[in-house]
């Protein structure tokens, strides 16, 4: 029995990890490890390229060449694949222009003005004898602020009553400063041509740091417009939509109507082994997950055809079919996770590009596929490298073996492998029996939620937000960090970061293209992590713990890419702490942190499995 070099290779959906050890006289010593991005879809021969590269790098670190490796052990990965989708369940539509509620940086004046809309160019033509009429002037971008202010002053001096203004350019303060009688002015109304003239309108501007109180109150609107009770009921959604704004304009048009439409999001049909349950997506994620829990497990999930969820699920099926090379009909969903999501979307019919925070549901789902095979990968790798390849034990077992190298752990133990597409959990009981489960929803779903809820339209940026703490550049030389500490810089921050919330990544500062505050972004980031991982950890534990009572567990060890996150493991530690469970991220072999569990397990099991003896 000489000395042997053994490598473990773990092919994940996102990452391929390698560990190399030397075995001599029954003694094992780990020499190196490496991680690369998985090339191609997991379980296909395209993986070989990434594996070879990872082996080269790891061997290099160990002072070896790949050809010195005696045995390569691959994990027998469970062929599950996940995908993500997201859709609205409510929508705000304004038919006929009737509301502008936005927060320009610098509106003019403060207070409430009520009157009839009139173009600034018509202001002096009107019948100034009718002095009991009040006017709201509408000022398009063609007009200079001096001229506009002069016009208003002149009209007022002739006895007209001008009570407010709606301005297209960023001229609110400029006009206000030039008025003899001050009025509230809402500016930066980009689509001013949609503002109807000769209609009754109200303009409200609150003091800095305050929000409007009259136009956001249905009875404020009814007072302003002398509405009947029936009209009040009709206009109430406008008040609701204006809650929280610093400035707003409401214009009464006869046909004007604001509809907050509940989209018929449709029903999901959850098919179990015995029976099926239907649940309306409009009831939200909790109701969907409750139905799922009542059902126990699913063999497939369908969406009512012709509805949003129908479209969403057939999109998923399509994606998954493409990924796995099956036909959409062959795909059956083995698990899913629904979480509530806030989706900012532009109000159709708005006049200043206002966004409504609509509610929606995000769905992660997972299918089993038989088209991927580790054995094909193994054969191809063996051919290419000319080294003996062995397909090791079940992935779950390998992960547990690796995780048990974390100091302070022992059987019975639970591992949570928190990856990109799935959250996998496995439990080894006191006698070594293993149960495992694969749940849809992990790091990529967190990224999707962040991307959507901040309206970024940029997955890379969302991924970066997920992984790094934030700062806000307060001055040329100071930055406030998330925890309130101030960082003092010697070089001035560049203009594109000034005053902005920035991601503090390893490659420097990335400014965020959003007006959302640092605290709100942090809150969205943390809530996305909680919605996905805390939910999934509890779901996973319920599945693999025979008594379904998580209080009976003692050690829970987190591994995988998302266990590297700077806050997810702490959230899980806190949550499971409530049940008296010791949960934390792994420290594989006392040095590797939450990485390399499966690769380490593969190497370790080469002794018992006779590979090296």
């Amino acid at each position, binding site marked *: 029995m000489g000395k042997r070099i053994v490598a473990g290779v773990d092919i994940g959906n996102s990452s391929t990890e390698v560990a190399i050890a030397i075995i001599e006289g029954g003694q094992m010593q780990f020499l190196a490890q490496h991680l690369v991005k998985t090339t191609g879809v997991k379980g296909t021969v395209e993986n070989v390229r990434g594996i070879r590269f990872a082996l080269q790098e790891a061997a290099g670190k160990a002072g070896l060449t790949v050809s010195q490796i005696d045995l390569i052990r691959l994990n027998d990965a469970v062929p599950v694949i996940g995908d993500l989708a997201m859709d609205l369940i409510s929508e705000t539509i304004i038919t006929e222009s009737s509301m502008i509620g936005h927060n320009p940086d610098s509106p003019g004046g403060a207070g409430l003005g009520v009157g009839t809309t009139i173009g600034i160019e018509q202001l002096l033509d009107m019948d100034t004898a009718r002095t009991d009429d009040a006017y709201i002037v509408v000022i398009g971008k063609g007009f200079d602020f001096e001229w506009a202010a002069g016009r208003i002053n002149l009209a007022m001096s002739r006895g007209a009553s001008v009570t407010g203004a709606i301005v297209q350019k960023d*001229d609110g*303060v400029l006009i206000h*400063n030039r008025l003899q009688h001050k009025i509230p002015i809402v500016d930066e109304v980009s689509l001013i041509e949609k503002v109807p003239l000769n209609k009754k309108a109200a303009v409200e501007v609150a003091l800095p740091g305050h929000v409007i109180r009259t136009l956001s109150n249905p009875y404020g609107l009814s007072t302003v417009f002398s509405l009947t009770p029936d009209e009040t009921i009709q206009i109430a959604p406008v008040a609701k939509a204006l809650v929280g704004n610093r400035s707003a304009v409401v214009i009464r048009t006869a046909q004007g109507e604001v509809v907050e439409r509940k989209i018929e999001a449709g029903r999901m049909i959850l098919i179990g082994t015995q029976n099926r349950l239907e649940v309306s997506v409009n009831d939200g994620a909790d109701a969907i997950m409750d139905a799922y829990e009542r059902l126990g497990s699913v063999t497939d999930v369908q969406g009512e055809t012709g509805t949003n969820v129908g479209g969403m699920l057939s999109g998923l099926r399509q994606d998954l079919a493409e990924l796995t090379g099956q036909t959409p009909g062959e795909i059956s969903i083995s698990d899913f996770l629904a979480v509530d999501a806030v989706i900012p979307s532009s109000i159709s019919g708005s006049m200043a590009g206002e966004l409504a925070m609509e509610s929606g549901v995000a769905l992660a789902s997972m299918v089993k596929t038989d088209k991927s095979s580790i054995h094909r990968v193994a054969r191809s790798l063996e051919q290419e490298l000319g080294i003996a390849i062995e397909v090791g034990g079940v992935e779950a077992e390998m992960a547990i073996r690796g995780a048990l190298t974390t100091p302070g752990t022992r059987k019975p133990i639970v591992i949570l492998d928190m990856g990109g597409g799935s959250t996998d959990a496995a439990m080894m009981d006191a006698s070594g029996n293993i149960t495992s489960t694969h749940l849809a929803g992990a790091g990529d779903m967190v990224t999707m939620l962040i991307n959507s809820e901040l309206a970024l339209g940029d997955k890379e940026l969302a991924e970066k937000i997920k992984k790094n703490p934030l700062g806000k550049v307060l001055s040329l030389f100071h930055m406030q960090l998330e925890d309130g500490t101030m960082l003092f810089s010697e070089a*001035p921050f560049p*203009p594109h970061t000034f*005053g902005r919330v920035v991601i503090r990544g390893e490659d420097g500062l990335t400014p965020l293209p959003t007006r959302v505050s640092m605290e709100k972004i942090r809150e969205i980031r943390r809530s996305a992590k909680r919605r996905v991982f805390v939910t999934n950890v509890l779901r996973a534990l319920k599945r693999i713990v025979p008594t379904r009572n998580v209080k009976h567990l003692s050690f829970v060890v987190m591994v995988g890419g998302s266990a590297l996150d700077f806050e997810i493991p702490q959230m899980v530690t806190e949550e499971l702490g409530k049940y008296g469970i010791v949960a934390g991220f792994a420290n594989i072999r006392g040095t590797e942190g939450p990485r390399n569990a499966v690769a380490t397990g593969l190497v370790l099991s080469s002794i018992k499995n006779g590979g090296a003896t």
Partner: protein
Amino acid sequence: MSSKEIFIPIIHDAGAQYEVIREISAGLEEEGVPYRVLQRTTRNLGDLPSPLQVVIGVHDNGTVSVSHEKVKGTPYLEYSWKHARRLGKNAARLVKGLPLHLPERG
């Protein structure tokens, strides 16, 4: 320090157009930051004392700039005349600590 002493100086070369200075002023005023216009050489503006540490320059070569007392050498911002309003706005926002509105091209 009275309100009279808080302002951003706008220093312009002899050839500066009235319209450019007016637009810069409008940008400052909309953001609520006072200013004073002075004709003088527009070289080394960063060395000029300024109560808000910021000096605006209107240069004969068709550019407008914002220099900051603590940023030596080149101006912190520099645009062409046609972005005068935006430059005034950004100078004010620099003082107020708000994100700048950067033009698509200088």
